[in-house]
């Protein structure tokens, strides 16, 4: 098996299978991950092939899932815990923030915390309340955690492998609206560094920076802008903690303009961090203020309103126009 077209969900499934095969210490755990294969079937077939000791159906208790994952990691295991939906992570937030993130530092480096927490996140699938949120900034703000999100099947496959191999806790945000998108995965490739941004499309007039579900929107926006004669560069950040500011800086110093796009609310979001840092780094190269496109300072709306709430092609292009108008 080398290069093949896989859906993002299937790529994650293959990645977990590879991890279970490679390292006997890897465990999958979460609600419904066994027989059902997870509500999005990302763990489909894994319990059948690796058994209940490796692919563990847990009680319905998020704090318990993460708290016991911490204990298993202390025993030398490498748990990959699934939180069923973004909005359900908060009962576990205490364990993640007060325990998981700090354990390595508290022990002055003498113990490691190789725990991966997979969280399907973001909107666009018409779900009910608490099933469409983008809480990545809440985790990126916490020292000790790493926060990443793939946007395509190849990254889904490789970034998850790399997260599982990492000795640090990694919050792995899966763009659930992209689970069914298919793209090429080369399972024999040599993957690049985990926390490095990728230039999806080169351009000269403006940089669009996005991650996870918004990379596709930004790529489409760049195609639409090209028809109007505008050359947009698109970056897939891939990692929200750490953020690869060097790649963003390099792009911005070429184009002179930056628009950051994410589904999460703009207020205190990762776009704010990027805008501030890039302003510090590249002030004299900027032709216009760094603009942000994202969710509003409101609870995630009911499904019938999410098209208005989520950044779509038009809102991204509107921000591009505003930036270019300076």
């Amino acid at each position, binding site marked *: 098996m080398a290069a093949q077209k896989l859906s993002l969900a299937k790529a994650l499934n293959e990645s977990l299978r590879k991890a279970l095969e490679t390292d006997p210490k890897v465990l999958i755990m979460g609600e419904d991950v066994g027989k059902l294969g997870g509500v999005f079937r990302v763990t489909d077939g894994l319990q059948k092939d690796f058994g209940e000791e490796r692919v563990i159906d847990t009680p319905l208790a998020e704090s*318990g899932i993460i*708290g*016991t994952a911490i204990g298993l990691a202390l*025993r030398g*295991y490498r748990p990959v815990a699934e939180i069923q939906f973004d909005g359900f992570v908060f009962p576990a937030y205490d364990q993640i923030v007060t325990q998981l993130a700090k354990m390595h530092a508290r022990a002055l480096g003498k113990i490691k915390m190789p725990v991966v927490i997979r969280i399907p996140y973001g909107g666009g699938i018409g779900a009910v309340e608490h099933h469409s949120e983008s809480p990545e900034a809440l985790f990126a703000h916490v020292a000790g955690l790493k926060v990443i999100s793939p946007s395509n099947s190849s990254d889904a496959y490789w970034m998850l492998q790399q997260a599982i191999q990492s000795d640090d806790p990694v919050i792995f945000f899966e763009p659930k609206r992209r689970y069914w998108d298919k793209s090429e995965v080369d399972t024999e490739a040599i993957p690049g560094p985990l926390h490095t941004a990728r230039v999806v499309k080169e351009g000269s007039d403006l940089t669009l920076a996005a991650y996870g579900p918004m990379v596709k929107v930004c790529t489409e926006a760049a195609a639409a802008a090209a028809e109007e004669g505008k050359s947009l560069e698109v970056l897939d950040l891939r990692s929200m903690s750490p953020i690869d500011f060097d790649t963003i800086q390099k792009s911005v110093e070429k184009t002179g303009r930056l628009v950051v796009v994410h589904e999460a609310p703009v207020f205190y979001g990762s776009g704010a961090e990027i805008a501030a840092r890039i302003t510090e780094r590249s002030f004299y190269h900027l032709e216009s203020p760094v603009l942000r496109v994202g969710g509003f300072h409101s609870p995630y709306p009911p499904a019938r309103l999410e098209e208005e709430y989520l950044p779509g092609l038009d809102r991204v292009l509107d921000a591009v126009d505003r930036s270019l108008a300076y």
Partner: protein
Amino acid sequence: MTVESTAARKPRRSSKRVSAAKKPLSSEPQLVQLLSPEGQRVEHPDYSIDLTSEELRGLYRDMVLTRRFDAEATALQRQGELGLWASLLGQEAAQIGSGRALDDDDYVFPTYREHGVAWCRGVDPTNLLGMFRGVNHGGWDPNSNNFHLYTIVIGSQTLHATGYAMGVAKDGADSAVIAYFGDGASSQGDVAESFTFSAVYNAPVVFFCQNNQWAISEPTERQSRVPLYQRAQGYGFPGVRVDGNDVLACLAVTKWALERARNGEGPTLVEAFTYRMGAHTTSDDPTKYRHDDERAAWEAKDPILRLRTLLTAEEHADEAFFTALDEESDVLAKRVREAVRAMPDPDHMAIFEHVYADGHALVDEERAQFAAYQASFAEEGN
């Protein structure tokens, strides 16, 4: 609220209302006891312990030295050498009894008051003081003594113990795990979830609850309507209440519970019924919420005095032993005092150390910036 809605409400049956903080439904302690408060041996149908004179003297020595260490730490806090101290005064039997029940391979998940258990694990007591002095957040290697770091968030460590025990079971190891927590922690969701997980996975873990009657100012009846050990039944594993001031009973019951765990019989809840003689921490003022007569009643149940009575009555120890132990206590106190005063403040750059195992670009950047900032003062001075 509108007038209508008020009127529509049923009148309160005020005559039948009860205090929210009423006593648990069954507050009569059904204690496992092997040594009475008067220092007399007590028979128990289910639990017994047969110790040599040397072992009995060892338990006594552990309790005396732990109490002396604790007193020294309290004094050091009063002298400004420690920012805070959580005293174990009164809980020596619960900690030494359970701590001495452990095998080397067993793993301990403490709260922040398990100084006696740490002693039993061979953790140098001066290691416990770093976090209270403010030079680290723990700092010892948990795997050196199978004694995890102190956990300050109440009850979190019970889940870590459960997960660790699940791993022990996966490994097919015949060791056990013990999680310490208090009566206040029994109200936490994490403790309930750890009961659920450990029962479901039949994890080899002993939950050792030191019910010291007070969660800072909140009494146990603010935490539970039933005796705490009875909680276990609802999760499907046994719960036992032991006289927490009786080191023999604590040892016997914990040994039994650990053995169950090792034999694949799953978790046990042990409630050590004891009393925190001092304040919750040095920041606390128990005179504001509890009466002197309560403390006096518990003083009569002192764990150290009652074992001393037994040692003397059964001629396990003579005056020379007690005198030598006093001297050893003084030596320990002096060593602790000197070690604390000699503890250096951490290097400024330690802020950036061990945030991540595999490094992080932002931490690297901030480390470099801070180093340059600090270096700028040296340049100004030139």
